[in-house]
């Protein structure tokens, strides 16, 4: 059968003997494995053997990893102490906001922590905040990185509203809400008579210290306004050495977060009593936030979190279970598809439909449950946040840490709708 197209008419005879360049006589495209889709290929087919081995291998790898992770997490000793409620004096528990905003009341608070297990140095001190949305878009944008890096760009305060300039038009360095709301509780630790000094060096990431915060940039006009949002900064120390600020400005991912406060290079023994003298300065009362002090050790895997270990164990266990289940299924009910294909026109068979339906239903239910849980948490937080806003009178001179109203205050955020705003 002649498989050449019409172009053979130009005499395909005897040319082979004439030698010279091989002249193609046909219009057939040059054969190549790529264009003919005949590249060497591997065509995996799922067989029961493959299924069982894959699940088994995954299970066998995951279970030991899970055990190791869980052991590492269990090794971590963590002491958590929530102090924002306890540190309010008993006569002011009805009016916490007045307590925190009143400069004359002493904010010093003494807490006693008991060490549950031996803790080896270095012990990390964190402060943990709850219901504080450092990941809110308006908040995250409210900074100017050029100003932080370069002393000559101190006037660049765009996007820093409302904390960009003083009333006189002088630029605030560092500008923005993130810097303005710097956490200002302080902690001092003693064990008996021994003072456990907190090493506050090297708590921030090296790349932040060296490249994002300039060595020649000094704070100026910071926290000078009527509203103080947080800590003040020493104007003589350059930003690259203001590690608390650097740690704070690396915004957290979720409303509950921890930030490193410092390290203690002492070993703590079980049943030691650590006395914490803290200054409860930061106002989390106006938005229903919580403050906790955390002392924790760390292993190669990090801090205390059982989730990874449990997840590995559960997934590994599930895989091994599935391996056994499929092995059993293989002997009890051999798969139906090996052999001559049976004719089956049309869509799904009835038991395929049921199968699809139950799988879909299970997945939908799981998704729905997760959504409900997630949104109820969010709804609770939003409702609480919205309704806990207390009326703020601007006549209140120089309140300390009166930050809570700012983020949610529609009047305050009216600049948001200003044409020049974002």
């Amino acid at each position, binding site marked *: 059968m002649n498989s050449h197209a019409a172009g053979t008419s130009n005499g395909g005879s005897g040319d082979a003997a004439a030698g010279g360049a091989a002249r193609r006589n046909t219009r057939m495209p040059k054969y190549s494995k790529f264009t003919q889709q005949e590249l060497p290929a591997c065509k995996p087919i799922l067989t029961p053997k493959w299924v069982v081995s894959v699940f088994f291998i995954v299970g066998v790898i995951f279970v030991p990893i899970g055990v190791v992770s869980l052991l590492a997490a269990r090794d971590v000793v963590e002491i958590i102490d929530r102090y924002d409620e306890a540190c309010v004096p008993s006569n002011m528990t009805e009016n916490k906001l007045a307590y925190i905003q009143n400069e004359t009341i002493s904010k010093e608070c003494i807490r006693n922590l008991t060490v549950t297990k031996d803790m080896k140095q270095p012990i990390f001190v964190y402060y943990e905040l709850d219901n504080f949305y450092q990941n809110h878009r308006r908040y995250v944008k409210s900074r100017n990185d050029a100003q932080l890096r370069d002393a000559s760009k101190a006037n660049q305060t765009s996007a820093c509203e409302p904390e960009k300039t003083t009333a006189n038009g002088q630029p605030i360095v560092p500008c923005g809400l993130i810097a303005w709301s710097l956490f200002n509780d302080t902690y001092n630790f003693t064990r008996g008579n021994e003072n456990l000094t907190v090493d506050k060096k090297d708590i921030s990431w090296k790349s932040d210290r060296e490249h994002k915060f300039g060595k020649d940039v000094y704070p100026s006009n910071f926290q000078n306004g009527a509203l103080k949002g947080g800590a003040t900064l020493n104007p003589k120390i350059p930003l690259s050495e203001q590690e608390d600020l650097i740690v704070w400005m690396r915004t957290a991912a979720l409303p509950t977060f921890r930030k490193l406060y410092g390290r203690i290079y002492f070993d703590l023994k079980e049943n030691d009593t650590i006395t914490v003298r803290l200054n409860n300065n930061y106002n989390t009362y106006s938005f229903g936030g919580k403050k906790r002090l955390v002392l924790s050790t760390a292993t190669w895997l990090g801090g205390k979190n059982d989730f990874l270990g449990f997840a590995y164990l559960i997934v590994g266990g599930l895989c091994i279970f599935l391996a056994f289940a499929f092995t059993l299924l293989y002997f009890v009910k051999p798969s139906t598809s090996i052999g001559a294909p049976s004719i089956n026109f049309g869509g*799904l068979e009835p038991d395929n439909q049921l199968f699809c339906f139950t799988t879909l239903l299970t997945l939908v239910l799981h998704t729905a449950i997760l959504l409900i849980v997630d949104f109820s948490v969010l709804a609770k937080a939003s409702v609480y946040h919205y309704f806990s806003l207390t009326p703020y009178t601007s006549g209140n001179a120089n309140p300390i840490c009166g930050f809570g109203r700012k983020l949610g205050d529609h009047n305050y955020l009216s600049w948001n709708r200003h044409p020049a705003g974002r």
Partner: protein
Amino acid sequence: MEAVTRLVKIRTSKTTLAIGDGANDVGMLQEADIGVGISGAEGMQAVMASDFAIAQFRFLERLLLVHGHWCYRRIAAMICYFFFKNITFGFTLFWFEAHAMFSAQPAYNDWFISFYSVAFTSLPVIALGVFDKDVSSRVCLEVPSLHQDGVNNVFFSWSRILSWMLNGMCCSIIIYFGSLNAILVQAVRQDGRVAGFDILGVTMYSCVVWTVNCQLALYISYFTWIQHFVIWGSILIWYTFLVIYGLFSPAISATAYHVFVEACAPSPLYWLSTLMIVVTALIPFFVYKISRTLYYPQYHDQVQRANSKNW
């Protein structure tokens, strides 16, 4: 003849194919849903008016049975997979918003988002849409009833589309909540530092890229060097991009500055959680695929399995 074609098309509501080689067939070819023109003795007018051009009438068999079957499967799979990968990615952003007061703060650095569809997940989809084969051409010709898959719309039915979308949503849930719970709030490394917004973003994004690419690897049934190159290459491109982008000055890279090299790569927690999340996200689809192909096989599964040895 176009009147006849139109009549058939409207009255039966079926997809019509017309084949012709001459100038008188042009009207019919244009009227039909698919016009196949034959180039040759009667000139090129039919070819210019057609959707497909072949050289001989007998090539129609190959066109329909081999290329028709392959292309239908490829295009349907590609579209479903496209929905899946974008839903997986997009929904992680959405779940993050639930924890960011719905303030429209993206969970990832802006350039990560921009490059998702361009650099990290585009080539594997092309590999799926252009190269995937479930059975060889010989089998396609020997088992013409495979063509009925297209007629019955097996690969692009609503249940398939919605299942892929649901798969995407479940993957995104697993990725988001897995990363969240594994990385936050405790220290992620031995030096006691915690994960902020940037580390969570990188972890989640890495999980998304790994999951969608490995999901593709689980789906396709024909692995040449091209598929390996684009699938594993895309994952490699992501890490390379992360490193290179992190090297640009903070004025450009903002939150991604040195984040991989300094924070994520030395942290065993990052790698272990990526592995766990990716495998967990892929298990539902894998179980479904096993159950489908081994215990509730459809016709094309059976044909594929029966002919797997003699390709």
